[in-house]
């Protein structure tokens, strides 16, 4: 199905109605997703049927939402706030729900809320900014300093496999963190990720080629270290 030729054009991947782009950019997909059917339709109180549907379609993805928020923000307290805020918005907009994949929708909102938070951090930042050396995307790769982060040796020495992987992912810039999570943990297709991250599919592909590559090498080093402990 997903041929290289289809990478060129994005069609209705997740079943949301598209609309013309608006600014600010981060609102685009959320509103596109929920374009009211008529000008008078607006977010409002939900009927029991709608809340039932909201539970089925959106609330069930709370774990996925938190997982994304935590890996992006790297701070449990911030992740909780981001998810909470995302669900407030989703609930408010749900009366305009017209079908589609609830998981990609809530994850898109989570992602956008994270970048809002990140922008705030940057504005407030007094600490030296951390910038990756391979900073091709300029500001897009800006990341706040990860105070919780151990040095690389310590990160890899983590006892649990999950802990070590988290540490490795957390060292990547946010644009790579998000594609890793959306692709490897949520298993979205390239096209879906392109829509969710509002990136050309080519950028998604190049990020996906970069991110796992960097991770895979680190992971192999980690496994080699634990070689004796594993069959």
């Amino acid at each position, binding site marked *: 199905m997903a041929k290289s030729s289809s990478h060129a054009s994005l069609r209705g991947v997740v079943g949301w109605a598209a609309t013309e782009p608006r600014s600010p950019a981060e609102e685009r997909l959320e509103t596109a997703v929920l374009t009211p059917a008529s000008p008078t339709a607006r977010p409002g109180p939900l009927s029991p049927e709608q809340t039932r549907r909201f539970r089925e379609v959106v609330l069930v993805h709370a774990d996925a939402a938190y997982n994304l928020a935590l890996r992006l923000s790297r701070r449990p307290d911030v992740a909780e706030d981001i998810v909470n805020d995302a669900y407030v918005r989703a609930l408010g907009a749900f009366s305009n729900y017209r079908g589609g994949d609830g998981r990609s929708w809530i994850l898109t909102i989570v992602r956008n809320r994270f970048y809002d938070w990140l922008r705030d951090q940057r504005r407030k930042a007094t600490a030296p900014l951390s910038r990756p050396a391979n900073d091709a995307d300029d500001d897009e790769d800006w990341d706040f300093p990860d105070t919780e982060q151990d040095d690389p040796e310590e990160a890899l020495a983590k006892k649990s*496999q999950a802990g070590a992987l988290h540490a490795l992912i957390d060292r990547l810039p946010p644009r790579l963190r998000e594609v890793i999570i959306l692709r490897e943990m949520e298993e979205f297709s390239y096209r879906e990720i392109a829509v969710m991250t509002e990136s050309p599919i080519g950028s998604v592909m190049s990020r996906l080629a970069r991110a796992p590559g960097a991770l895979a090498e680190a*992971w192999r080093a980690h496994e080699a270290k634990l070689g004796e402990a594993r069959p």
Partner: protein
Amino acid sequence: MSGCPDWQERLQGLIDGELDAAHAVEVEAHVAGCAACSEAYADALKLRTALRGEDVRVVAPDILTLRLEAMVRAAEASAAPAAPVTPSAAVVRPFSGGRRRDRALWGFGGAGVALAACAVLAVSVVPAMQTAQLEQDLVAGHVRSQLVGHLTDVVTSDQHVVKPWFGGKLDFSPPVIDLADQGFPLVGGRLDYIGKRTVAAIVYRRGRHVINLFVWPGSGELGPAEAKPGDGYTLLHWTRGGMTFWAVSDVNEKDLQAFRQLLQARIPA
């Protein structure tokens, strides 16, 4: 980066099942002949296995789940005494998951009933093994899907629609891969109940024949892939990527084996 820079994206595309057959073959050929890329490929697969391991994907803390649930309940409560719905709010909006074609298309009529009876009989004489009951369930599921005109709940050849459709209904995410370019077009998906659990049934077509691919998590105690032809029905099972697959169809065994191999090539181990 250990692989060839020029092949990096295509290599990742192969791993992600995002290449068409022609490109996949091309990349596989390169990987086979390039030590660096073959190593990068192995690393990537190892990383994938690790990333999909236990506890890597964290779950929401209970306190957050409770907060969200309370939020939904509050929204419902506030709506309870609401005024009569406005005309605009009353508009029934099309739900994209509800696109359906005429299901009668898939009804096979009387001949199907007779065939079905044969099939069930054929399966019931399979030597009593631990999988006999399961196989019976599977054939019954396959037959039922065609008899009651309930082949699919979501009818679309778009794998990106079928997969999310399963998303909210199952506690696992079955791989949904269209093989139209290989002569096995995806028809849609539905839920089925096999071996005391809800499973994904992904429906393909081969010419006029229907292939039901049943998928659920777990590798079970089943042996390697094997075909069990029986009176017009062929069952084939295998495991991959932590999932159990059963293909059931009345296509010949060779075709079903080809179908399995095509799927295998696109499903990460």
